[in-house]
């Protein structure tokens, strides 16, 4: 079983998030607003090395970047 999204370097969770977003966006306006609030994610994260905190980055952009990298790495 090969998944197209797996080949694109997307994790299962990301795949679910995208699918959920599509469903939420296709809802009617009144329901959509309430539903889209559940899909919001505004986290920041930092990597630590040897007891030092690294740069604070937005989690959403970092995740997409990491997956894009993963995808180009696996296709080569």
């Amino acid at each position, binding site marked *: 079983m090969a998944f197209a999204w797996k080949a694109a370097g997307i994790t299962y969770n990301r795949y679910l998030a995208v699918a959920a977003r599509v469903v939420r966006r296709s809802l009617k306006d009144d329901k959509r607003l309430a539903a889209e609030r*559940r899909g919001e*994610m*505004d*986290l920041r*994260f930092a990597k*630590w090395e040897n007891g030092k*905190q690294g740069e604070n980055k937005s989690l959403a952009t970092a995740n997409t970047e990491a997956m894009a990298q993963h995808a180009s790495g696996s296709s080569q």
Partner: protein
Amino acid sequence: MLSRAARPAFKAGAAVALRPAAAAATLPIAQTANYVTLREIEGRLKSIRNIEKITKTMKIVASTKLTRAQRAMTESRSYGQTSNKVFEEAETKPSEEAGKTLLVVCSSDKGLCGGIHSGMTRATRRLMNEHPGDYDICVLGEKCKAQLSRSNAKELILSFAGVGKDVPTFADAQAIADQISLLPTDYASIKIMYNKFINAQSYEPTVVEAYSEEAIAASPNFAAFEIDDEVLANLREYALANSIFWALAEGHACEQSARRNAMDNASKNAGDMISKFTILFNRTRQAVITNELVDIITGASASE
């Protein structure tokens, strides 16, 4: 003559009146005149009243948030338990082989909620001391990060901020799970530590296990589910996100209820202080009047 004799007794009385309030508030009260000046007490009273207003408002806000958080918690709990049902049925055990364990500590960004974050940190440290060197820590929320970075900075590898502003969403949990699964190190198991909500007054740090692929594959009843090896990684990621979501929601509910309690206590203490200071204020006022009267009478009797 009489007034001279009366004065030391009066002074002693004033000192006694001062003591309960001073002990409760541990104020640097100016003891020069043996009674606090009226203006000082007045200022003090005013500031305590303001603090009481703030804590009361925070308590109300926390109460309303608590009902929402509790609803989210019960929903996410049944969700997480359903997700874990697979592993229960498959009788999955955490893999015995020695390897690093990732400890995900679920706290939040905000304080003013009693000791739940420190309780969390203490439980983490206890766990780390039992098996030193086996753990890496991933912290969700600023509070535990600040505490753990002082003692276990070497073991910290990831920290997330922005947790606990609102009821945690599944999108939060998914993004965190993604970032964790993208970590270069392969962990033998992932442990998620969160505050378990027992009732409005009590909660305890609890650990929930998120299994590694090997552990899932090695579980005795695993064959009954007929899961392909390829989708196993998906299951693991998904289960991790589910568990994190559960932990976050439950931790959030605990935090809100702890904040409500903390603010309730703070308002109560402020009320106590206000009543004590009001009494002290009135006593001092009377004392000042009496003192002045005594002075006047002494002067009058001396000039006769």
